[in-house]
């Protein structure tokens, strides 16, 4: 289980990070929260087992001991109300970082997120500010079955008033959460259960890219692969395979799902004339639909083929391991579709 990994480390109170250090994504998030709590008294963290327990995925490890129960609060299983509590606190000066243990439970908190956090500023005629961060890991992990493999990004990306980021790299886990906490609008930080224990380079003190800008993670001239969160590594793996076959893919990491950085996608497609979206979301009505529709609209005459989608199967997630693997995109699936369209 992902949560059991890395038991030997104790990054709860991370020492200054040396240049070139490798961190795990959960450590990058932990560092971002630790600094946010230290820098700004308005920040507090609230969620199930974020305190004494240190977080189900260790993200809040060490913070309870350092900041105390009022700033690092263990919550009962009351998702809708403790998220709504975050909204109320944000309205009066707080900068709550609410952790919903996984997006599966966010289905219970959507009134607080959609009908309150996102709408309050507008319906108050601009009086209210809701600097709320809602963190939650989504996606398919290791055989957690139908009720624990929900994807919710298609729902949240549609909501006026919300911002949503979905970091893929360790650096972005640190950077985008840090920016989200400083933002004056409600921001959903969509994490992924399978990324927490991935290691990656982390450089401290470097300037952070804009919170919502996309990033070209691999340059290429033949085909544009568009992905976010864990699917970025799937896209990169596919690109490697295809490179050996002489198909040179550009991989764009969306990084943000509301807003999206269409300009970067257009620039890429202007080179490649072909694009494909890789999403873990179920295909029908998923994130890829908007990306494809937007690209088709704005780059229609650049495109030599329709924007394709490689997405999660339109089924609840099965428990069985092989079926589960078959229900989400793997690099082979991506490569296959690219080959199809690359020749056409």
């Amino acid at each position: 289980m992902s949560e059991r990994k890395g038991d030997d480390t104790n990054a709860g109170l991370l020492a200054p990070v040396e240049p070139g250090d490798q961190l795990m994504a959960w450590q990058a998030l932990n560092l971002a929260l630790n600094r946010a709590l230290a820098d700004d008294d308005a920040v507090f963290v609230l969620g199930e087992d974020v305190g004494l327990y240190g977080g189900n995925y260790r993200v809040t490890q060490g913070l309870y001991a350092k900041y105390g129960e009022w700033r690092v609060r263990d919550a009962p299983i009351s998702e809708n109300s403790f998220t709504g509590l975050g909204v109320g606190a944000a309205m009066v000066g707080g900068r709550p970082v609410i952790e919903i243990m996984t997006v599966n439970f966010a289905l219970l908190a959507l009134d607080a997120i959609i009908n309150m956090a996102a709408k309050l500023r507008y319906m108050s005629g601009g009086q209210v500010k809701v600097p709320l961060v809602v963190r939650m890991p989504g996606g398919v992990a290791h055989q957690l079955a139908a009720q624990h493999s929900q994807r919710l990004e298609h729902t949240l990306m549609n909501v006026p008033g919300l911002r949503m980021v979905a970091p893929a790299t360790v650096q972005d886990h640190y950077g985008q959460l840090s920016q989200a906490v400083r933002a004056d609008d409600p921001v959903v930080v969509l994490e992924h259960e399978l990324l927490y224990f991935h290691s990656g380079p982390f450089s401290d003190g470097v300037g952070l890219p804009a919170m919502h800008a996309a990033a070209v993670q691999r340059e290429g001239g033949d085909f544009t692969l568009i992905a976010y969160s864990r699917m970025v590594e799937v896209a990169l793996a596919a690109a490697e395979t295809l490179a050996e076959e002489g198909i040179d893919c550009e991989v764009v990491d969306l990084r943000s799902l509301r807003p999206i950085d269409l300009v970067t996608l257009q620039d890429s497609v202007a080179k490649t004339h072909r694009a494909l979206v890789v999403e873990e979301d179920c295909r029908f009505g998923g994130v890829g639909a908007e990306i494809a529709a937007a690209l088709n609209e704005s780059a229609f005459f650049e495109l030599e083929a329709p924007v394709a989608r490689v997405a999660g199967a339109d089924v609840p997630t099965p428990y069985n391991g092989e079926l589960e693997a078959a229900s989400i995109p793997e690099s082979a699936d991506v490569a296959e579709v690219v080959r199809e369209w690359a020749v056409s």
Partner: protein
Amino acid sequence: MRRDLAKTFLYDMALAREFEQRAAEQYTEGKIAGFLHLYPGEEAVAVGSLRAADPGDYVVTTYREHVHALVRGITPAAVMAELFGRADGCSRGYGGSMHLFDMDRRFLGGYAIVGETFPVAAGAAYWLRLNSEPDVVLCYFGDGAVNQGTFHETLNMVALWGLPVVLICENNHYQIGTEIHRHSAIAEVHKRACGYGIEAERVDGMDVLAVYDATRHALHHVRDGNGPYLLECETYRYRGHSMADPGAYRSALEVSELRARDPLRTFRKRANEEGWVAEDEADGLAEQARSAVDEALAFADASPPPTELHADVYVEPIHLYRGRP
């Protein structure tokens, strides 16, 4: 009791009654649209409880909140202009009747999804407690809202953490057309606090003085650090649930019985008997209230509509298809 307080009560309730009746007329004439939920019959609750609160206390209300806004000091003009959907409304015409806001007066708004006032109030209270502020949050809700999960989830949290909230139930015995015995296993709302160890009390919501005293007691309890308090005010709405509801599910007898205990008339009588406010003085206050609403209507009528569809969705505006600044 102080004469000026009695006068305040009389004026507040006269203004409340007048404002709502005139709003109803404006709705029928098409100047106000959407859902319009009126307060006649329940005036003593908002007036008695909010007059017991300090300016530093936060107020969280439902969609039936015109009177709360008025008592809190939002001008009749700003409230009426909001009902008209105009730029000078307290929510600049973007919120309407169900969403009155005034952050300067710590009026955290009207919420139209039943049960939302609980977590919002808890959040403000959490922030107050975290910063050891002396202020308290007044959280309003109806008898129907008690069966929403947020009531339960929030009462547990505010009790567990000892948050400074006074939970004020406006028990008018109806959830639209469903009478309380048909929606709640226990019809005495204050008794539902037992599951959280929260101090609770029922008070006659048709008696402004009783509500005032009970709220003061509740606020002291909370300010003294004894945790949250639940106050159930038994009251009644004379009109239907909203302008869309003729209220046919209630007997004329029931309505007339309750009207006999009208909070305005009963308190006016008492104020006169006790020698707090003489009849002619009371007439003067009612007259003042009428002209205040006249002015409010004129103001609302003259106020321009808001013009920007995309204003204030975000503090820092975004372009949905451009992630780079």
